[in-house]
């Protein structure tokens, strides 16, 4: 690769990242607006959730979280953002030269780290919401005095652990469908396969895989009805409860960016269209992102929050569809 090619590749990567940031900043607003219209209300201005809110938080005073390791707790959203950026980068065609780093294994590994971060966040946060009240809890003849107190974030940390164990099955199975069809773990091979044979999405295995991928997408984003990490009825914001000021801004930015990244992974693996600012097909990436956002908003608007009683069977059922897709891919 010549220096000129390297320079163009570099510009393409940076350009794609900037475009991704620009588009992802609008996604939370689009999602909220879409939900609001379904609920027959006006909703927030489209720029508020993804742009104005993070911007506002950057100018707020940083409040130290109630955490045994506040430094580490605060840095976790930044790590999450870096991982999300890495996820997008490994799907970019300019970086396919990195071979193993641009394989499905790397993709799955980074997604796992993204999930683990929630577990760390939960175990490092101890908000005031779960403090004991000595008078009514101990002195006044309360039930079970002296019981170990659990913070609500600890509860969500345990849930994050369970999600790592089984909740992310659907998305990994869906990714594996494309591997089974293209018979390669390299993203470049999966893209090349689709350029020759057409998009995987337009096959039976691809359709089933896409459904499974979408469910996995919603689980990874902790969106209703899969928001067990952030259930309003018990753990509230869960692991994110103690983030304030710029660190909360990072959380917001990360989430918007993750929507774009996961939709781009879908475009890459199921349509054979990797995110590349040098090609007009980047518009398809953006269109897929918008479609994903709107479908997600619709599903979440019409769903209650699931508990594990609903979650386990649903994940098992969706995973079974994923396995059927893999079987179909061998036929």
């Amino acid at each position: 690769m010549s220096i000129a090619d390297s320079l163009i590749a570099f510009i393409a990567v940076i350009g794609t990242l900037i475009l991704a940031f620009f588009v992802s900043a609008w996604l939370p607003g689009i999602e909220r607006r879409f939900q609001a219209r379904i609920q027959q209300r006006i909703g927030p201005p489209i720029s508020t959730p993804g742009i104005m809110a993070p911007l506002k938080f950057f100018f707020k005073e940083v409040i130290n979280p109630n955490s045994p390791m506040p430094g580490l707790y605060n840095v976790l959203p930044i790590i999450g953002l870096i991982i999300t950026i890495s996820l997008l980068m490994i799907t970019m065609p300019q970086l396919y030269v990195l071979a193993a780093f641009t394989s499905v294994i790397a993709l799955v590994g980074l997604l796992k780290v993204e999930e683990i971060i929630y577990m760390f966040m939960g175990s490092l946060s101890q908000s005031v919401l779960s403090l004991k009240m000595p008078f009514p809890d101990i002195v006044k003849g309360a039930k079970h005095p002296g019981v170990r107190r659990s913070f609500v974030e600890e509860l969500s940390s345990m849930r994050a652990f369970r999600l790592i164990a089984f909740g992310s099955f659907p998305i990994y199975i869906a990714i594996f469908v494309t591997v089974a069809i293209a018979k390669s773990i390299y993203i470049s091979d999966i893209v090349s396969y689709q350029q020759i044979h057409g998009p995987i999405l337009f096959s039976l295995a691809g359709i089933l895989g896409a459904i499974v991928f979408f469910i996995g997408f919603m689980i990874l984003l902790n969106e209703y009805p899969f928001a067990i990490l952030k259930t309003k009825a018990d753990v509230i914001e869960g692991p994110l409860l103690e983030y304030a000021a710029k660190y909360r801004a990072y959380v917001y930015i990360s989430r918007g960016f993750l929507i774009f990244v996961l939709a781009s992974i879908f475009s890459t693996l199921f349509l054979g269209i990797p995110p590349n600012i040098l090609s007009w097909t980047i518009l398809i990436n953006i269109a897929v992102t918008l479609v994903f956002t709107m479908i997600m908003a619709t599903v979440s608007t019409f769903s209650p929050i699931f508990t594990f009683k609903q979650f386990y069977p649903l994940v098992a059922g969706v995973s079974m569809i994923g396995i059927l897709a893999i079987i179909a891919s061998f036929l």
Partner: protein
Amino acid sequence: MDEDNKVTKKQVIETEVPLGTVHSAAIEPYRVRLFVEDEIVKDAEITVGVNHRGVERIMEGLPVEKANSLTEKICGICSNSHIWNSVLVAEKALGIEVPERALYIRIIMEELERLHSHMLYLAHGSEVLGHETFAMRIFYIRETVMELLRMIGGNRVQYGVPIIGGIRPRAELDLMRIQKIKDGMDFVEEKITEFAERFVSDPMVMSRITGVGILKKEDAIRLSATGPTLRATGVDIDLRRDMPEYESFEFNVITQDDGDVKANILVRVLEIPESIKIIRQAIDHLPEGKITNRSWDMEDSPVTNNYIEVPRGKLYHSYSLDDGRVRNVIIRTPSITNIGAMEYACIGYHITDAQLAIVQCDPCFTCTDRAIKIIQI
């Protein structure tokens, strides 16, 4: 553990998850300690007292008319119920005859309040379920009832309609108002039927609320549950059937057998058409005549009490009259008697269902914060 997975003996609990007094699922300040093992609630403790205002103490020594209007401030949801019951105590103590037209308008107000209270319950329950869309839809329907209450009483809360001997002149119903109430009831009936059909046919919602927070009939009686919470367990009790004010009205007492969240929701949903039925009867047979009886004299009276059926169950008011001023005030709201049921209902279920099991009893903790007894001042 017994066959229902409830704690029957004292046992060592591993972990406590305290929720409140400020919590996103609680619309009022209260505190619940959930004792959990692997996210399953093994025991629960609800503490109230954060919002105590001592209304009874403030009422002591006030002229009875002022004291009555103060009772309205006890609750923002069932304010009419409080002032109505307080006025009924005075009327009972002084033997005051109330014009029939005023009685009918009081019934209309009470049933409109029941409608908005039950719809608030449905909306809050939907929010705790995580189903904001249902909550928004029900608030949209409730708005009609709130506007009718504003039209009659002048406020969306604390309408101040009943006074001793009748109702305020402002609450008189003319033909235009009667027509608006009729139209409003048609709208609410149509929309609530659509909502109920959507609600019960949603498999995801049904899977969240069926078999959750079960309260058996005998447990509900033992724990002194009241109102729709008790009726959801199959106990056929509605004080309205025994209240002389409701003698001229035909309505069905709604009961369900399961005692779970679904049964509680269904009881309230099905009570909405019954309330509409009562309002229509009151409008159709609204007697002509005056709305206030002013020919009564203030006398001293011993402690007099009265029970009425309000949206959440039985409401108790009692006080004595001494030189036109109230003494020995005791008020008991339905939520205080439902607290035992709330604690019991969340045991044995997932921690996410605990708030749902509490909310199914339709708690109103701000009005509950008054469990005091003033013996003599």
